[in-house]
Each structure stands twice: as structure tokens, then as C-alpha cells.
């Protein structure tokens, strides 16, 4: 391995974690390409805990002080703040190793928060830090290493021959370990060479798999965190903590944690085979369900199902994933959804012929680098998944972005001259893969343009290639600059909001309310939809404060959940909500009711909204929604479900008889745009925001976050 040169070193006394908190955070600044490195530890106050809880809340609070309203993502002061939260790092309950990364995003020019599994967050806390902030820009490539046993932070200069993620991660697990057993005590956050050019740069968080004897990667993929990391010249962040016992959080009530956790382990063992198949197929089990309900994105979200679905259904993926391994991305996760394909022989690109372990594909990747680009070949998806992770491209934005490119190509908005010879039609396996390879080094002008994301592509394609901007605005599936994740939301009015009335853009971690709205018809009025778009985003945000994975909440349910509870109450999975309240209390020693849980989230939700307002966003005009998200745009989309869409027109009071399809489309979209505005009004009202989407002073007071600096931001907008 290339020599690592020590540039700076600081010693610290690791704080002992007590009841979930170390009560200090680490802040490293890499200067302004001037070689001036600083390292500080800061206390975490009672007020910070009370108002921001942890994880994403801490990240936002720390970032607020790091940046100014004019800061951009590539300014030195932008920081990446990684924090788990008070529950993060327990081992007794499934899904409790999650870590949140907060930063200003190149895609959205506002705050972003992206979560990942892997061991970084728990090891960071056990090393004595509730959060780790890294800001500044180094002159040359560096690695920041935290040794939690020794109490040392070091910055090394390192110029590896290959800056892509699998290479970097393996090399650093090797370098910082004393032997094979020691490798599991290390976690690496890395990015890749595509992140040096593309705004879709992902951050890969590692954990060492002792059975496969390889470092596995879990992605904080969304929002361009990897791009920010490489802009700072950071090759990797590394933390090491030996002898993890599962009691590092020093919980107030270990006996309760054990009891609640053991119960859920048993529940997963008993129910997973009949409920979700997470242990066998991971989230890729969703492909078939989404297809059945016309929710699977096919060809840039034009269609919702395909006859070729059986090529990528759960049976197909079950055969490809290695079965019977303990596939949790943190200790104690019996949901074990971190599936992997072992012994896969790479077919293209720089690693051609190499046999590798590929992490995933998860559902989002199986759909984005699959059906959404018109490809129903799992081996192609596995190949692209490998390279996307290795080069560090967010598979969701990449797939949605490529789908947009394919549609532009098929519509004749761009051609082979623009693409430098690539024929980028839907289903063009070889040419799409070649485009991904070209995105790695950024030398190809077209590939570099694609890597900037759909919002920028619309600008470049119209200005440089003369493409019709208005068509691209209709079909480009982005909101606030972020590409939509892999669910078609056209037929669920509530999910329009679930995607497009979000803090950071259309990402499925706020609310997934399609079934309760579209299938089960449990949200008939705008007030009902607004209530769901109040509760679920806040409930789910809580996971990001505590350091918890969403999946064990409702991807397994108690056997009697739907007998004991009905409708939306059943969708909340009350027994599991109670588990979260109980484990929070068991760790911190502080009682928590379900109302207080929502209050904790609401504080951070509104703080983040104000933060985005401070960055020049965060008002109604930024909650954009493209036509394709509301309904069919072209006749082929209508005609594939003509009777269904005629029915929707009738429901809207418009007689379809005698109308040409083009006119039907116009009328349905006009109607749905009006419905959208009604939804926005209802949701803003329920959230305690004014008609412009700004939290009111009353709301901020009620939540106790009416700090002077917050009030100052919202006051001109009242």
C-alpha cells in the first residue's frame, strides 16, 4: 500500500458514554488548502439534548453554526456531521446502528441528511463522541483516523493508486488492523472517483463481515455527501474501537433492553417468511408487490408494471443472494436485510474478470438500475450496483437520472452526437454501463453533465443541445433538485406530498402512504391526508434522532397487529412504537410518551425547515412537482390503462367520451394541479406553517425552538 504520511495528531481522553450520550462532539477542520488543521472537542449541553435529541438533530444544530446564509456546498465552511443518537450502538434490538450525515448538498443547495448502516456511528460514540464534524478543505488527499482505544485523532496524507470505495475500504481495514480478527473493530467512510465530478457522490460506510472476510459497504448515498467529502480532499474517515461488548451505552435498564430485543428477534424468526422475506431477499422482495400495484417505475416512471417482472422478482433474487448468513449491517440486526451476491465475476470496466462480493441490490437499486431504465436483468443490475458503489454514485439518483436521459434520447431531445456515440435508449445495457464508466473520471463532457443531476441536465441539455426545456420539466423526476426514489406516486394524492412536500426532496424516508391512500382508501379528505403527512414524517424522523433503522418498525409486524388494530392505527404498528419508547427509556433513563416522541421530531423538522429558509430555500415555490409525478404525460402512458384513467376523469367531473387522448391528459393534469395546491394548503396548515410554507412564530414557540437566530430568519416571512 502507498505510504501514509502523518500530518497532524491530537490526543484526547475518551469520554465514558452514560445513558446513551458521551456528552461531547469532535470537530476537525482541514483549513483552507493551507495545511492548517485544527481539532477540537465541544461539550454537548443539556439544552442541546433536550431540543435536538441526537443524530440528525445534532448534525443540524452543529451545521447551523458552521455555515452562513451565503455558504455553498463547496465552500470550506460546509461541514459533514456524522452522528448516531442516544440509542445508536445498542446491540440488543434490531436496527440500532444507524448513523446520520448532515451537510449542505450540491444537488439542492440546502441541508441534506443521509443515513447509513455500518459500524461507524456506534464505534464513534464508543470512542467518546456523540457527533463528528469535519469541515475545511485539505490541499492533498487525506485520511482522518480516530483511535477510540488510544484516544487519538490523526490526519494522514495518502494518495492511493485507486480512490474508489471498495479498494480504499479494504486497504484501510488492512492497514489499521493487527490481524484478521481486528478488522471488525474498524469502520471506514469513503467515497469514490465519480464523486470528484458528479453531484451524486455517495458516502460508503463499512463493516467487516467475518464470514465472507470482506469489508461490506452501506451507503449514505443520497444528496451528494460523497461529493462534499471529496471536495474536501478526504479519501476516508476511519474509526477504530476494540472489544465492543454491547453495553457501551451504559443503559439505564439493560434488563428491559434485553427483554424487548429478544422478543423482536423471536418475532422476526416467526413472521419474516410469511410477511416480508427480508432475511432471504432483503428489500428487493418489494419488486413484485410494486409491480402488482402499478407502482414499480418502468421507463422513467412512465409505466408501473412489466411482463418481464419475473426476471427480477423475489425468487430470482433469492437464488442470487447467498442464503443463511448473518446479514445485519450492525450487531443484533436479525432482520438481516444486508444481502450480498458472492463470487460475482465482473464483466466490464477496470475490474473486469475480478470475483467480488456485491452489496445488494436493495429494492431501490433493483428498480432504479433495472426497471426504471427498462432493464430486467438482475446480473446487469448487480454489475451496475457494484460500480455505482465502487465509484460512489448514489444508485437512486443515478437510476432516475439515467431514466431521464433515456427518455430524452428516445424523444429526440438529445442524440448520439451529444452522447459521444452512445445509443441511450431504454434497455441499452452496454451503452448505459459505458456511460457509468465514463462518469467515473468525468473526462467525457456528456457523462459529466449527466452526473450533475436532472435539474442541471435540464439546463445543460436546453442550452447546449437545444433540447425543449418545457418537455424536460414535465418528465424530469426531481423535486428541489433531488431525484425521486423508486415509487410511482401518480395515483396517490397523499404520496405526492409524501415525496414533494418534504424537507430535502423526494426521498421515501419521510412518508410512504400509498397503500393507506390509494389501495385502502383510508385518507379520503385533504385533512386526512395532511394528518398522515404530519404524523408519519415526524414519526419517521424520530429514527434519525435516536439512531435507528426504519425497517424493523413495519417490515415485520406482530402476528396480531391487524387484528388488534384497524386502518391507519394498524399501519402505525403500535406495539413496535411502544418498543421504541421503551428502549429509549431503557437507554436514557428518561420516560417518553408517544406524544413527546412526535414533539422531539417536530422540533427538528421545523428547525430544518427554517435552516433551509435561511439558505434561501424553504418556501412554497421550492416545493415543485413535475407532471410525470401527477399523471400520464404522453398518450402511450394513458393508453396502457385507458379505462382506468377515463374513470379518474369521470371522478373529476370531466366526461372523457369523444375527447382525444392528448386533451384527456391536459384535463387530468389541470385537475390534479388544483388538487396538489389544495394538498399543499392542508399540509402546511397542519404543520403549523403559513401559506408560504414557513413555520409560524406560534409554532416555533410551541416547540420551544424560538431561539433569537431562528426567529430572525422567519420574521420577514410572517
Amino acid at each position, binding site marked *: 500500500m502507498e505510504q501514509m504520511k502523518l500530518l497532524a495528531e491530537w490526543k484526547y481522553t475518551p469520554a465514558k458514554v452514560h445513558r446513551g450520550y458521551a456528552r461531547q462532539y469532535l470537530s476537525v477542520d482541514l483549513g483552507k488548502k493551507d495545511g492548517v488543521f485544527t481539532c477540537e472537542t465541544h461539550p454537548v449541553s443539556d439544552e442541546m439534548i433536550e431540543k435536538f435529541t441526537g443524530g440528525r438533530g445534532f448534525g443540524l444544530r452543529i451545521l447551523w453554526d458552521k455555515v452562513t446564509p451565503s455558504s455553498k456546498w463547496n465552500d470550506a465552511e460546509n461541514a459533514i456531521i456524522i452522528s448516531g443518537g442516544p440509542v445508536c450502538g445498542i*446491540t*440488543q434490538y434490531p436496527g440500532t446502528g444507524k448513523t446520520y450525515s448532515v451537510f449542505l448538498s450540491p444537488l439542492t443547495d440546502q441541508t441534506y441528511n443521509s443515513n447509513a448502516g455500518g459500524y461507524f456511528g456506534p464505534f464513534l460514540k464508543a470512542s467518546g463522541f456523540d457527533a463528528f464534524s469535519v469541515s475545511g478543505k485539505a490541499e492533498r488527499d487525506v485520511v482522518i483516523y480516530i483511535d477510540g482505544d488510544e484516544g487519538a485523532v490523526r490526519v494522514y496524507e495518502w494518495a492511493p493508486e485507486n480512490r474508489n470505495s471498495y479498494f480504499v475500504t479494504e486497504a484501510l481495514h488492512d492497514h489499521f488492523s493487527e490481524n484478521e480478527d481486528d478488522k*471488525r473493530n474498524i469502520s471506514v467512510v469513503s467515497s469514490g472517483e465519480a464523486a470528484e465530478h458528479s453531484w451524486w457522490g455517495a458516502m460508503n460506510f463499512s463493516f467487516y463481515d*467475518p*464470514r465472507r472476510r470482506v469489508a461490506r459497504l452501506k451507503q449514505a448515498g443520497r444528496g451528494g455527501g460523497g461529493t462534499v467529502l471529496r471536495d474536501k480532499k478526504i479519501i476516508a474517515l476511519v474509526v477504530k474501537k476494540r*472489544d*465492543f*461488548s*454491547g*453495553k457501551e451505552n451504559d443503559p439505564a435498564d*439493560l*434488563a428491559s433492553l*434485553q427483554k424487548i*430485543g*429478544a*422478543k*423482536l*428477534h*423471536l*418475532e*422476526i*424468526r416467526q413472521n419474516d417468511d410469511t410477511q416480508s422475506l427480508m432475511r432471504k431477499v432483503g428489500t428487493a422482495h418489494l419488486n413484485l408487490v410494486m409491480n402488482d400495484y402499478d407502482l414499480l417505475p418502468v421507463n422513467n416512471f412512465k409505466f408501473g408494471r412489466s411482463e418481464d417482472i419475473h426476471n427480477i422478482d423475489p425468487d430470482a433474487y433469492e437464488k442470487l443472494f447467498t442464503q*443463511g*448468513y*448473518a446479514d*445485519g449491517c450492525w*450487531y*443484533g*440486526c*436479525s432482520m*438481516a436485510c444486508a444481502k450480498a451476491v458472492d463470487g460475482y465475476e465482473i464483466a466490464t470496466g477496470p475490474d473486469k474478470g475480478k470475483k467480488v462480493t456485491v452489496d445488494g441490490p436493495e429494492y431501490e437499486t433493483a428498480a432504479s438500475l433495472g426497471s426504471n431504465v427498462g432493464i430486467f436483468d438482475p446480473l446487469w443490475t448487480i454489475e451496475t450496483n457494484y460500480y455505482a458503489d465502487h465509484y460512489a454514485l448514489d444508485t437512486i439518483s443515478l437510476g432516475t437520472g439515467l431514466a431521464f436521459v433515456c427518455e430524452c434520447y428516445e424523444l429526440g431531445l438529445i442524440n448520439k452526437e451529444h452522447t459521444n456515440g452512445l445509443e441511450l435508449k431504454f434497455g441499452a445495457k452496454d451503452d448505459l454501463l459505458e456511460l457509468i464508466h465514463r462518469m467515473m473520471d468525468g473526462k467525457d463532457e456528456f457523462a459529466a453533465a449527466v452526473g450533475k443531476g436532472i435539474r442541471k441536465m435540464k439546463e445543460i441539455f436546453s442550452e447546449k443541445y437545444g433540447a425543449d426545456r418545457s418537455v424536460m420539466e414535465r418528465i424530469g423526476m426531481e423535486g428541489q433538485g433531488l431525484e425521486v426514489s423508486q415509487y410511482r406516486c401518480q395515483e396517490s394524492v397523499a404520496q405526492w406530498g409524501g415525496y414533494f412536500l418534504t424537507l430535502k426532496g423526494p426521498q421515501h424516508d419521510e412518508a410512504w402512504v400509498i397503500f393507506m391512500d390509494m389501495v385502502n382508501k383510508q385518507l379520503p379528505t385533504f385533512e386526512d391526508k395532511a394528518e398522515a403527512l404530519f404524523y408519519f414524517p415526524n414519526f419517521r424522523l424520530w429514527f434519525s434522532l435516536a439512531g435507528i433503522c426504519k425497517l424493523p418498525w413495519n417490515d415485520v409486524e406482530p402476528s396480531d397487529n391487524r387484528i388488534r388494530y384497524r386502518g391507519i392505527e394498524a399501519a402505525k404498528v403500535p406495539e413496535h412504537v411502544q418498543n421504541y419508547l421503551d428502549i429509549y427509556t431503557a437507554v436514557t433513563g428518561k420516560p417518553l410518551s408517544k406524544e413527546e416522541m412526535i414533539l422531539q421530531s417536530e422540533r427538528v423538522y421545523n428547525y430544518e425547515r427554517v435552516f433551509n429558509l435561511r439558505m434561501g430555500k424553504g418556501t412554497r415555490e421550492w416545493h415543485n412537482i413535475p407532471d410525470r409525478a401527477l399523471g400520464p404525460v404522453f398518450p402511450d402512458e394513458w393508453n396502457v390503462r385507458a379505462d382506468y384513467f377515463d374513470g379518474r376523469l369521470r371522478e373529476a367531473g370531466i366526461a372523457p367520451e369523444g375527447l382525444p387522448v392528448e386533451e384527456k391528459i391536459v384535463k387530468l393534469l389541470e385537475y390534479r394541479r388544483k388538487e396538489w395546491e389544495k394538498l399543499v394548503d392542508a399540509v402546511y396548515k397542519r404543520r403549523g406553517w403559513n401559506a408560504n410554507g414557513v413555520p409560524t412564530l406560534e409554532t416555533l414557540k410551541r416547540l420551544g425552538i424560538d431561539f433569537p437566530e431562528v426567529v430572525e430568519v422567519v420574521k420577514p416571512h410572517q
Partner: protein
Amino acid sequence: MKFLKPLLDKCVMCGACMSACSKAWAKKDDPEMSRISVKNVTGLPDIRVCDQCGGCIAVCPTMALQRDKNGVVQIDRQKCTSCLICVGFCPSASMFFHADTDSPFKCVACGICVKACPEGALSVVEQKKEG
């Protein structure tokens, strides 16, 4: 493979096995700390003790569960992170835990309870590998 074999019809639910086990392994006379559990369920003994099936080995994230040379499943406490997946996934519900101990615990067919049982309801037997 060595394992502890209980005979339900001989068991009188006196608790001597749990007492001997917990005293030997946890230095405490406490049935909650015993590696064998005997409960009175509607007048009949419900005995939970590891049969060394090895179902827990594959689910352990740190490979802390391994068979020893006698085929007995042992926990490497250096590797164990107390996650308790093995508890939830044990087919015979015979992996136990207690907040006072760092790791879950199970029967290792040591035979201490065999000597303590007044009714001869327990024995350590050897099962040869087939073929």
C-alpha cells in the same frame, strides 16, 4: 456429539438441576441464571435445555458461537456482543440471558445437573455422527 438428555416422565420439577447449575456457573443459587430451565406447565414439566443442534451458530454476527471438539456449542465471550439474536432464533428456546451477565448462556453438557438430579431424569449422552 455430547448433549444433555432429559426424561420428562422421571422429572418431579424439584429444581435441583437449576440450583446446581446456577451455583456452578453463576456462583449464585438462582433459577434465572441456570442453563437448564424447568417449569411447571399445568402440572407437567416443561424442560428447556440445549440439544446442541447448532441452529444458533449461523445467526451470530460475530461468529462467537462454535462447536468444540465434543460437538458442544460454545460461546466465545470475547467475540460476543450480547445482541441476543441467538436467543430469539434458538429452536428449543434454550439460550438464556440475564442483565447481570455479559453474554447469553446455554448448557454445555457438563453433567453437574445430572449428579444433582434425585430422580435420574437427566443424562449426558453421546450421539455419533452418521456415516
